[in-house]
Structures are given as C-alpha cells and as structure tokens.
C-alpha cells in the first residue's frame, strides 16, 4: 500500500471565472507530484472539463452554489474528486458521437467528457441528484 499520502481541497463558488483558479490549484499539485509538463496540462484539462460541466449544467450558472475539488496524491496516483449538489445527469446518456458527425449536426456536446476519458486512467460518476454528485478520476503516476 501507499506509504505516502497528501490531501488537498479547494471550495469555490460555481462560476466559470474560477476555472483558472481550479486549473492552477490542480496544476501545482501535479507539478509537485513530478508529473511531466504535458501530463500536468492534461490533468488541468480534465479537471477544467469536469468543473465546467458542474458549473454550467449541474448548477446552471448559479454562483451561490459551490464546487468542491479534492485531490489525493500518493506514490501511485493522483486521485481527483469533484463534488456538487446540483441536478446531476446520467453519464450513460451522453452521446459520444465522432467529430465529423458533431460538426454536421452543428453540435459540440460531449467533448468534455470524451477529453476526460482520453486523458485520465479512470473516470467514474456517482450521482444522487440534488444531494451529492461525485466524479472520481485517477491518473496513475508513471514509474521511472
């Protein structure tokens, strides 16, 4: 088991204005964990996508609500947990159309979730709409 563990937490009002702060928070921890520059960027991107979804969809841009970002770092991985109390959604209902189809239909939906799944090793949702929705994402640290 991991003999090293650090935990971090950021609570921010639900506003897209705070996405930069969220990226910065996660990016600094990822750098501290020794992730390569390109992996840091991808981790920031995954968290940005997840939080943007919460802010715009779960909370419908209600700035009185709060987005909670928790990061747990150990020897093996970075685990991100994003928690909201918004309306939630069915992750299985988000269509993963290919890019050409999206463009033909003049849509761009589902791209954020696709990016999260492409850049993280694990992406898992637990939804209790209006009570507690939780997204857990894991990025494994590469062994030297």
């Amino acid at each position, binding site marked *: 088991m991991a003999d090293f563990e650090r935990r971090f937490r950021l609570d921010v009002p639900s506003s897209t204005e705070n*996405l930069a702060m969220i990226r910065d928070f996660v990016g600094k921890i990822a750098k501290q964990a020794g992730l390569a520059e390109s992996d840091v960027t991808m981790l920031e*991107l995954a968290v940005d996508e997840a939080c943007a979804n919460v802010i715009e969809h779960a909370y419908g841009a209600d700035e009185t609500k709060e987005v909670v970002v928790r990061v747990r770092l150990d020897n093996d991985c970075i685990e991100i947990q994003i928690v909201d109390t918004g309306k939630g959604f069915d992750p299985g209902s988000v269509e993963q159309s290919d*890019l050409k189809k999206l463009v033909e239909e003049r849509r761009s939906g589902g791209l954020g979730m696709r990016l999260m799944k492409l850049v993280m090793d694990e992406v898992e949702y637990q939804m209790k709409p209006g009570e507690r929705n939780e997204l857990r994402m894991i990025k494994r640290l590469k062994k030297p």
Partner: protein
Amino acid sequence: MANSFAIQAFDQGDITVLALDGFLDAHTAPEFEEAIQKEITAGRHRIIVNCEKLSYISSAGLGVFMSFIEEIREAGGDIKICSVIPKVRQVFDILGFQSLFEIVDDVPQAVARFESASQGG
C-alpha cells in the same frame, strides 16, 4: 484570478486573421464565439485563427470551432488554424482535430492555402 483572454482581428484582403491570446475555456469561449459570428455577419468567411499566443484551450473553445465550421464552409469559406504551441496542439491531436481542420505552421502558410484554394476553383 482572472482568466486572461484577448482577441485581435486583422484584415488581410478578404481574409480575417483572428489572433487569440491567453486562455480559452468555458469562461472566455463566448468572446471567441462573438468574434467569429461578427465575421460571418459581415460576410467574411475566410478566417485564419492564429494560436501563437494561445496558452490553453478546453472543449468550450474547441466547440466554437466546431459549431461554425459547417456554416462557413457552406458559404465557400474556411477556418484555418496556425502557429499552435505544443501544449494546445496536444489537445487538438487527442480529439483528432487535424481531420476536420487544416492546421499549418504560420499565417503566411494559411494565407497561401486560401490562395491556392481560390486558384484551384
């Protein structure tokens, strides 16, 4: 912490160059959307997006490119993307953006692509 983002538009004949600067995310994407809409409304459908100073892009920014491209191509124009830094290029590449958009090294090359397209009919 502010999400710094700015767009500068330059006309080069019938081509518009939109130079993006800073962070393009869900907060700043509406500004980019507005800039492209403005060109379409003005009947200008040949657009080069210069990403030289673009430090970051998320799906909200990518979505702007995707939502306008059909309309622009139907009007005989195109969006060409140039001068993308590796960090941003990485995001384009993982989604397969190069299959939808022409991504070239710099503005002169993007202009040349538009010109060769005109000559080719």
